[in-house]
């Protein structure tokens, strides 16, 4: 489709209050369950109208959804169903029985979920309605959501730009109001970076906070299912539902997620800025001016609100990028071995192939270039004679980085950086050197390596800017609830700005005016 001129696309929809939050929907449907059905019908038709322009969704599960909605409506809400009737969208690498789990790959053509992910199970137990699957970079590998068998996802603020990746579809779906909460997965920034590009919250929980059972693995020691939302309160609710120890995932944290809601004040919070990292990006010209401005402004506003902003150095952060790509690719090369054309997914059609050729053909035909690149890189990093020099040193660098963070968190409560060096870039930007693309993840990767929690929040923009810019706050492993409360503080001080992109979903108004805080 041809895009209208920028000025028209960026009509200030801010006046138009267009979205409901998860908490407002849940409380509304809890008191009038029978409004659910018509709500979902018009939501889905609105979504189907708007999706083609952005290509955020890969399926809308109409029948199953209406069936579930009807069932929920007729039985009404039950004790503890904090997400009663709330629509939620899954990245298509999270398992739900019957839903496509194609991971945007040719090799998983036609593959559907065989069991429910723990996160899915818990959301449904809280009354949520999972109704659609979202586009992504193939097997969650990419920062632009252009590596997808379904085609690229477009940025709702400028259709000629990328959504970010790999969880681009979920980010766009959240930004456009397809659902108040959507799920992505974050291995090196795959939720935070698209959140930054699309102007929504993207929260990567601490490693082990949310069960990975049912998430198709990319880098197992880095992956976390991570929510997008448009209010801090929704982040809090959805994490309360999803987080917690899972007997099916041995890497989950023992300590439960206990809401910290309303207990934090910005006054006195110690905010660290890894100045070396930021300055390096700035001085080498890799930091976009609007990102730099947003960061400076945040710094000033935080100071004004009473926070202590301190410069910190995090030892080991300079080698985070190569360490990340070695570890993630090594794990991916092993995790993706099961896609061999034998038991599920796509098999090479040629007849009379011997076993080795069958593997080779099926994988050569089934995987895209970026996935192949990472499998090969990972295979090399683990191969005999090189494993110590590459994988071994990467692990050592990872542990050094983790202790670097530990040290930094002795003097600060939270770290502030940009989420990504630039706002959303143009689709199809040719980059001969993939390592330049990898640089995009410089700010997000450390949190995965060190198992920390981190959130990208949309910064308030100057009037001349129309592309969202995200800033990242990063806290120690396990302090997720505290970090959500920090986002609430930022909201309170208007330090983040949730906007409404052009052509967002005009969801049906709810019959009853909702209580304060219900609408964004």
């Amino acid at each position, binding site marked *: 489709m041809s895009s209208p001129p920028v000025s028209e696309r960026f009509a200030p929809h801010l006046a138009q209050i267009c979205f409901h939050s998860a908490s407002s929907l849940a409380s509304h449907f809890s008191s009038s369950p029978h409004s659910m059905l018509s709500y979902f019908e018009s939501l889905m038709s609105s979504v189907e109208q708007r999706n083609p322009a952005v290509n955020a969704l890969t399926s809308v599960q109409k029948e199953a959804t209406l069936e579930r909605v009807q069932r929920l409506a007729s039985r009404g809400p039950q004790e503890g169903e904090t997400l009663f009737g709330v629509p939620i969208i899954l990245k298509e690498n999270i*398992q739900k029985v019957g839903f496509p789990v194609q991971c945007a790959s040719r090799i998983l053509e036609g593959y559907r979920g065989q069991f429910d992910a723990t996160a899915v199970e818990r959301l449904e137990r809280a009354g949520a309605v999972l109704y659609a699957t979202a586009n992504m970079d193939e097997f969650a590998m990419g920062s632009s959501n252009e590596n997808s068998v379904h085609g690229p996802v477009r940025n709702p603020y400028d259709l000629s730009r990328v959504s970010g990746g790999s969880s681009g579809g979920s980010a766009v779906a959240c930004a456009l109001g397809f659902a108040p909460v959507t799920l992505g997965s974050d291995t090196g920034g795959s939720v935070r970076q698209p959140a930054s590009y699309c102007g929504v919250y993207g929260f990567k929980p601490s490693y082990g906070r949310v069960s990975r*059972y*049912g998430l*198709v*693995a990319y880098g197992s020691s880095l992956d976390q299912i991570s929510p997008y939302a448009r209010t801090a309160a929704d982040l809090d609710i959805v994490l309360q539902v999803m987080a917690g120890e899972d007997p099916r995932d041995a890497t989950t944290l023992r300590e439960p997620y206990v809401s910290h809601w309303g207990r934090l004040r910005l006054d006195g919070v110690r905010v660290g800025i890894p100045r070396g990292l930021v300055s390096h990006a700035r001085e080498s010209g890799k930091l976009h001016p609007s990102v730099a401005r947003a960061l400076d402004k945040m710094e000033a506003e935080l100071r004004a609100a009473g926070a202590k902003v301190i410069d910190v150095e995090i030892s080991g952060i300079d080698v985070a990028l190569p360490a990340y790509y070695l570890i993630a690719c*090594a794990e991916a*090369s092993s995790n993706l071995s099961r*896609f061999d054309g034998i*038991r599920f997914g796509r098999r090479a059609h040629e007849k009379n192939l011997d076993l080795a050729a069958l593997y080779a053909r099926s994988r050569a035909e089934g995987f895209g270039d970026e996935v192949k690149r990472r499998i090969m890189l990972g295979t090399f990093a*683990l191969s005999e004679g090189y494993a110590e020099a590459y994988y071994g040193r990467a692990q050592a660098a990872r542990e050094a980085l983790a202790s670097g963070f530990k040290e930094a968190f002795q003097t600060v409560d939270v770290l502030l950086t940009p989420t990504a060096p630039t706002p959303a870039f143009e689709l199809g930007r040719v980059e001969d050197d993939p390592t330049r693309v990898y640089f995009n993840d410089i700010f997000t990767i450390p949190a995965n390596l060190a198992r920390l929690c981190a959130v990208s929040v949309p910064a308030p923009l100057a009037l001349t800017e129309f592309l969202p810019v995200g800033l990242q706050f990063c806290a120690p492993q396990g302090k997720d609830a505290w970090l959500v409360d920090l986002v609430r503080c930022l909201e309170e001080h208007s330090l983040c700005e949730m906007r409404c992109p052009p052509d967002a979903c005009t969801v049906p108004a709810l019959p009853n005016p909702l209580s304060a805080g219900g609408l964004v």
Partner: protein
Amino acid sequence: MNGFTNSRAVETTHAGVLKALMFYDVVIGLEVHCQLATRSKIFSASANSFGDEPNTNLDPTCVGLPGALPVLNDACVDLALRMGLATQCEIPHRSSFERKNYFYPDLPKGYQITQLHHPICRNGSITLSNGKSVRIDRIQLEEDAGKNVHTGNHSLCDYNRSGVGLIEIVSHPDLETPEDAADYLRKLHALAVHLGVSEGDMERGHFRADANVSLKPKGSSVLGQRTETKNVNSFRFLERAIVREIERQFQVLQSGGRVVMETRGYDPEADEGFSQRSKEEAHDYRYFPEPDLPPLFVTPERVERVRASMPELPDQRHKRYVSACGLSEKDAHWLAHTRAPAAWFDAVIARLPKGMEPRMVVSFLQSDVLRVQREAAERRGVAVEDLTEMVVSAEAALGLLAFVGDGTISLRMAKDVLDEMFTSGRAAADIVREKGLVQVSDEHTIAEVVLRVLDTHSKSVVEYFAGKEKMIAFFVGQTMKLGGGKLNPAKVNAVLLAELEKRRP
């Protein structure tokens, strides 16, 4: 040398091996895979059961569905610890898992979860029948693969076995003959079965060995090139496979050739090894730490709990039977390596009636209790080994042996009472009382019977004095018979000898 410190002679009966041993030292190490007898698989909850319809004991984890994760089965850990304790292993506080990556249709994830750098048990040893000690390098936990079934021009995969728990027991290259290798495997097998670690069914592949074999010039300290013969699942085949491999390597070396690193198989029907994969085709397994499983910490308390739950080992039992019970080496060895009889024996001697000795109990067990056991098995149409319980309970036997101990009845009489107990199902006391079975120890009464016997068999008495001393047994038999089996045999013997002396010409 290879660190093997035994000084006993290297003994083998295989001609080909003997010939090789004239020029070379044989170096053998075994890797034994032992399937763990747990109800569910090692990383998921589906059943570990053999012989079911293909692909019925499955779950997302054991078939490697995308998104599924492994969770370690604690029961597998405890069984591995048992085996480790039984082989004097060290139990490190921390062990961890690795992924071993390779492609094969029976391996659904494309990697096997195993242990490499930090196995659950280390540095153990086991003593062979000939007294040699073999060092165990490690015991590691891992998962089994599925099975490919080849039919005509296509292949099918059965994943029932996929994810079943295994321990791999890796020896040092301390074995020097095919016989020792087979004996080592037998010892491990007996331990695993005795401890309930494995069902040990060789035909079902519960126990399989890979043999690493190499030859080095006699006395040389440099190991020769080894080959690995994979997946041998019988004691005898293992011995044969190693014999054939030694012969082959000997021939290669004698004709000036070089042994090449390769993976081999053994065909029992042809009694012949064959090459499967050479070094050039060898896998690079790309080991790396399994990110889905945190390290396994085994606390000293857990080790002690496992130790306390372990049945006594045959060797310990053997020692106890000799030193504390005074059994002969032969009886002790036999009994220590049984299951039900040993348990029966232990229950009986725990409450040993006055006047009884453990030696007498073993003799009663071997001659009478096991006879009843065999008869019962025959009647039920099963093999005697299939009876897991003793037909004569320790409780019932104690009731009977109490009468032997206090001299009421003789062991000879006990045999008849036992038969009666077995056919009627009544208690010993009832039978003894009812039949008036009371042993006669009164010397006068015995003497009367003895005199009658000697009078009736005067010709035999003459033969006795003519030097035919074994006639004494005949007189004892006749006296016992005439006495209705009630006479005290020891007394009979004494009275008989005294009376005979009186008649010495």
